[in-house]
């Protein structure tokens, strides 16, 4: 399994984000996750700017695997990026 850093930008209410979390857990991957909708004020705005750097549309889930950006729960792409 890949030792690339995995970062997940998610919404706590989003089902596709939840499925992404479940899938990463099934893969046994350690990942850093932030639920952007649970943040407030400056912290939230700063995180939105961070997401936009990788996905200008700021949609969720946005997944970073190494330097690869995957938008949406695309199982095959996530698996492929993890295996590379």
């Amino acid at each position, binding site marked *: 399994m890949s030792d690339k850093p995995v970062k997940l930008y998610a*919404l706590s209410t*989003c*089902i*596709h984000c939840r499925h992404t979390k479940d899938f990463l857990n099934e893969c046994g991957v350690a990942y850093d996750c932030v639920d952007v*909708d649970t943040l407030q004020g400056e912290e939230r705005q700063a995180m939105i700017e961070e997401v936009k750097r990788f996905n200008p*549309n700021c*949609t969720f889930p946005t997944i970073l695997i190494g330097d690869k950006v995957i938008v*949406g729960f*695309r199982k095959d792409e996530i698996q492929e990026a993890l295996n590379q």
Partner: protein
Amino acid sequence: MTAAELYEKLRPIQEAKGFYFNRDLEGMTLPLLESLLINKNRYGYMVCPCRLASGDREKDQDIICPCAYRDPDVAEYGSCYCGLYVSQAWNEGKIPRVVVPERRPPEKMFF
């Protein structure tokens, strides 16, 4: 209100319009309905659970469920963006299931 109650309340209204709840109740529909109730509690209105709300009802108007993009999404992909509402054909597996792209114009996102 519980997610199950919301399901029973909305189902006849939406089915009459040709929109069906995703038949994956445990994996999709009930969690999404629960999230709609969380958002109602959080923002005061049932904004799409798969989109980041601004918290301003006017600015979020187009993403209050059923959102302004549901009809074209179901017409084109058989499913709305979050996957709560689908067509009968989608539910029956007669059309391919794809990740529905965000149709909301970026300029409508107020954050």
